[in-house]
């Protein structure tokens, strides 16, 4: 029995080792471009729905939370289907690995948002910059199994995030402080995946 368990462990270890050294092809360029579009739509809609985001942070949050949820849903569905198609035997391992790299930053972002909005609402203007910095950390963490050029969008998010924080007041809640970086960043990610990712025929399985 122990031998059989050990054999299963060995098989799992081999699969994990291969997954570690395989470029993840689950993120789709089209889906990433769509998330850029969601950012533009949200930034366009924001002034009509939230006239004073500093005093109605929950409404501001709702708009961007909706965009983030839609993006996450679309990315997850694409990730699942592409991964099944491109990594077949490694699919579950690859998805698990991608989630392990990116989910911690999403979790940290969510928790910090709750704390900022409900415990220290006078610094809610920090949210856009904070989200971009957190997102950049997620992209940096994912770089290990993505093309090396993915560092460029990660650096962009870090730079725009820090710049948004440097604004230092409620002007940071202006719609395009979120709209422009996320539209640009996501388009950049889409371009990297489209032009710099491994060719489909080179992908393992």
């Amino acid at each position, binding site marked *: 029995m122990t031998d059989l368990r050990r054999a299963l462990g060995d098989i799992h270890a081999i699969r994990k080792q*291969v997954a570690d050294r395989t470029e993840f092809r689950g993120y789709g360029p089209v889906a990433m471009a769509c998330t850029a579009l969601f950012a533009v739509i949200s930034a366009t809609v924001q002034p009509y729905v939230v006239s004073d985001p500093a005093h109605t942070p929950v409404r501001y949050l709702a708009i961007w939370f909706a965009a983030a949820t839609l993006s996450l849903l679309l990315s997850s569905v694409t990730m699942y289907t592409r991964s099944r198609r491109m990594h077949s*035997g490694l699919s579950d391992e690859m998805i698990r690995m991608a989630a392990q790299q990116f989910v911690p930053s999403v979790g940290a972002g969510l928790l910090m948002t709750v704390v900022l909005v409900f415990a220290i609402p006078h610094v809610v203007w920090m949210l856009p910059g904070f989200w971009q910095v957190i997102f950049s950390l997620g992209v940096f963490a994912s770089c290990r199994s993505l093309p090396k050029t993915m560092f460029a969008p990660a650096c962009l998010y870090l730079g725009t995030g820090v710049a948004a924080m440097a604004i230092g007041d409620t002007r940071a809640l202006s719609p395009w402080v979120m709209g422009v970086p996320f539209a640009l960043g996501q388009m950049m990610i889409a371009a990297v995946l489209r032009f710099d990712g491994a060719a489909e025929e080179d992908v393992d*399985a």
Partner: protein
Amino acid sequence: MPEQEGRFAYEGLDRLIHERARLSVLTSLLTHPKGLTFVELKAMCSLTDGNLSRHLSILEQDGMVLIEKGHEKNRPQTLCRITAYGKKRYLEYLETLEQVVRDAAKIAEGSKANSRGRMRPAEA
């Protein structure tokens, strides 16, 4: 309920891979995607020159490995790499092998439980 037809056929157990030496070669190459030299591979798999050459040529003929002959510091060097096709077939093989082990583990668990059940009345 009758067992699903072909449930234990294990057709994914590729004969070409299901040979100890070739399994070692492919596993070594799979975990070193940049490739391994003939000497490194020979040491990792504990094979003789002749044995390794024979297995490599079988795998190469089937398109599972790529063998590049070149020079490193003016000395001839043979670099072996697994192909995308080889990787795909190996992973399919691994999936079936995992199923075999899972089935065996299930049977072993079942027979252990049965023997425990038979022991109880005697113990009482």
